[in-house]
């Protein structure tokens, strides 16, 4: 079992190719790998509970660790109480931690 870090910086309402990012995460998890999806910049918009957050909720339910950069959330006025189910606010330090532990990392 490998460990993966997928960093998503794009808003799915702006960039439809985030679908492939989410699909990659789903597939990696389905194959038994440990996966963190870290949302940053406009990638945190679907972390706010909304019609666009169903994809993230499904990934979290499947066992993917879904984290949203706390700085990006604050920049966009998204409070912790408004996050979609299964999405947690986290500092950017998590990315450096996971890079340092040698996870396979992809930025999108």
């Amino acid at each position, binding site marked *: 079992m490998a460990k993966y870090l997928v*960093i998503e*910086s794009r808003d799915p309402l702006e*960039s439809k190719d985030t679908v492939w990012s989410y699909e990659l995460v789903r597939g990696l998890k389905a194959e038994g790998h440990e996966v963190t999806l870290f949302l*940053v*910049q*406009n990638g945190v918009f679907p972390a706010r509970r909304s019609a666009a957050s169903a994809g993230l909720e499904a990934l979290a339910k499947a066992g993917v660790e879904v984290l949203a950069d706390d*700085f990006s959330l604050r920049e966009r006025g998204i409070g912790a109480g408004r996050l979609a189910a299964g999405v947690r606010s986290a500092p*950017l*330090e998590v*990315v*450096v931690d996971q*890079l*340092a532990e*040698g*996870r396979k*990392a992809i*930025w999108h």
Partner: protein
Amino acid sequence: MAEKKTLTFVLMDPPYEDARSTTALRLLHVAAQRGYNINVFAYEGAVYLPFAKQAPHANAVHGRDLAQEDHPNPKDWIAALIAETEKNGGKLDWINCGLCVDERGAGETIPGVRRGSPADLWKFAESSDNTLVIGTR
């Protein structure tokens, strides 16, 4: 004592244009605070991030002079990151892609930045615990 890590970051975006540059510098800051060895390979527009001739400016629209505007320049942040890394026992090795520099006339950099080639990126990746490529779209 924890093992010293070495991380490589590959940057492509120019300054002042996209949040990716800000996020990249935030990541470097975290690694610098931990005293990691940090490699940066900057190519395409990112070679302008440490460009020495960046200059602050006033903002006439908002009626602010130079001091009031306090315009941020990435070259100063990078100089601070190099110093922060060194203070914490690490080293920040920043290489600008030479071809990208020549294309853009971006040869004048702050101290601590050197010129290199894609072969240096390969060496960085080979000698690192991990590499993150932050490509533009």
